[in-house]
């Protein structure tokens, strides 16, 4: 067990390290002097030099990289080139929106996908199966931001039930905030759920063909009991793998969807920072997103071991 964990943790650390290296190279080393970029081509060389020193950009690349890594370890991500305020604070402000949004859409995704996937597998080749599967085929083809716009057209423009964008915040209790994240998370979730539903269906169908399903039936269990007690847990392994991979798409999706609904989340912060050439903010945001993706997939790997008793031994 401990060897299994150790190996996974080592992989996690190595992956995070590699990600940080690439992000640093692309967003710090490659662009050249950030101070020059900030001040524009016709700034006086003296002013540029002064800003270079002020931002700590006069230090060698390796030192800057190590300082960044050290800073991440203690939660100090440096100051925004543009606002001069700590980057960590800027990001934290935005995460109170992006994290709930990601969690809500993941929850909706999982509920929709499992319901549709299990329903269709249990009714294999019947009308309901064919109907729901055709729907998912269409769902996969929808760009999530277009689906978001359609939802706005329906719920805000036509029915006038929900606002077309903006974030109510968490100050007036939890409901206004959730309400303003409802359409965004649905538009993110539906498309992902269409994919995950198909994965769930084929995973369940695959397990239904296994010998132990017949054994369970031979014990006198009904079809439903076999499905819930024996099939689902086995089918969860491929479903979870895809869920882990989808998380990356989901985070990427939040960047797009935040722009559709004018939500002040991490995605908007990244865009503003690109516009402002505030590369230190971009770099840290991208690192954070990559770290979240890698960590979620790490957690999925660990969850396998809890779900599947075979993994603990085979990896020892």
């Amino acid at each position: 067990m401990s060897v299994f964990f150790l190996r996974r943790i080592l992989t996690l650390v190595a992956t995070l390290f590699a990600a940080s290296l690439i992000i640093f190279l692309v967003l710090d080393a490659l662009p050249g002097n950030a101070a020059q970029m900030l001040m524009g081509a016709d700034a006086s060389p003296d002013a540029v030099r002064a800003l270079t020193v002020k931002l700590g950009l006069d230090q060698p690349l390796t030192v800057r990289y190590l300082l960044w890594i050290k800073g991440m370890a203690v939660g100090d991500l440096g100051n925004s080139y543009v606002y001069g305020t700590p980057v960590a604070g800027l990001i934290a402000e935005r995460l109170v929106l992006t994290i709930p949004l990601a969690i809500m859409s993941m929850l909706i995704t999982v509920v929709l996908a499992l319901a549709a996937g299990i329903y269709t597998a249990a009714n294999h080749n019947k009308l309901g199966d064919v109907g729901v599967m055709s729907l998912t085929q269409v769902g996969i083809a929808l760009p999530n931001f277009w689906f978001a716009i359609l939802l706005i057209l329906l719920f805000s423009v036509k029915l006038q039930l929900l606002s077309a964008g903006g974030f109510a915040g968490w100050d007036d209790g939890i409901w206004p905030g959730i309400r303003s994240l409802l359409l965004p998370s649905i538009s993110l979730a539906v498309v992902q759920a269409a994919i995950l539903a198909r994965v769930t269906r084929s995973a369940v169908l695959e397990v239904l063909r296994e010998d132990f399903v017949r054994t369970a039936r031979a014990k006198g269990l009904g079809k439903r009991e076999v499905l819930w007690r024996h099939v689902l847990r086995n089918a969860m392994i491929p479903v979870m793998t895809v869920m882990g991979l989808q998380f990356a798409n989901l985070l990427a999706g939040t960047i797009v969807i935040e722009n559709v609904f004018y939500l002040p989340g991490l995605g908007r912060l990244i865009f503003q920072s690109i516009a402002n050439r505030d590369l230190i903010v971009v770099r840290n945001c991208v690192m954070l997103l990559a770290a979240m993706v890698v960590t979620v997939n790490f957690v999925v790997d660990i969850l396998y071991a809890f779900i599947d008793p075979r993994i603990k031994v085979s990896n020892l």
Partner: protein
Amino acid sequence: MSGAPLIEVKDLGVRLNTSRGPAQAVRGVNFALRRGETLGLVGESGCGKSVTALALMGLLPESAVISGSIRFDGAELVGLPDAAYCKLRGNRISMIFQEPMTALNPMHTIGHQVAEPLLRHAGISAAEARQEAIALLDRVGLPDAAKRVDAYPHQFSGGQRQRITIAMALACQPDVLIADEPTTALDVTIQGQILDLIAGLVEERGMSMILISHDLGVIAENVNRMMVMYGGTVVESGATDAVFTRMGHPYTQGLFRARPRLGARKGTRLKTIAGTVPELADLPAGCTFADRCAIVEARCRAALPAVVDVGAAHGVRCIRTDVSMAAGGSIA
């Protein structure tokens, strides 16, 4: 009580949907099984042994069309709703499958899986079921049963897993045990042990058993009566020693000649009969064995031959038993 048959099968037919269209996998199967009696089912791979067994268990795919009648303890099973069937399965009729490596759910402990039929049928508490599961595992010869009851299937060998599935099948003291090639997937050395275990348990509990095998040796040693299947039909049936001493069907004779040498129990494919088992979808119109039979005549292909009695309760589905039995299958 011992007079009335426990299972009575009349003119059983099974139509399956195969990738090449519907096909009659089993037809015209008749037999009766009394309490405490053991019946062997022998034949080459694909001849319909498992399909017959699954028909008894009510576990054929939904698309299968079953005709004829299966009576269990007087009640008709063909067309029985699944809910009612569930009350019988694992309770009064149990089955052991061929592949112990895949017959157990890898995600559940063996204790849980053995206790499951008890919880389903016996109406006892989880703690009692667990104790009973340990006792059962102990009885089937799983070493350290009390300690290993919480282990998972992958932690056991093939032979041990087959012992576990046997414990599972016997949990509710069924009246009938169907063992579908219980040792085919096991090492030769372990096959004997498992068969002895099954025979001992059947004897001890007074169960009836249907033992399926493609190994004549296994059948000879373990059952009172036997049926030889070919192409979905029973071509010969009778008391085991009667069939072995006076085999009437050319196919049975071929099987016997093709039998691996004594001691080598491992069921290998029988290659010495010329030709191969016909595809279900294109079974010949008459005798199913016609294409491989050495003494085939034109009239064999006209219609499925009727069963001819060649001895007391010894039937052969062949129109030329006079020739085949004179040629003397028994000499071999």
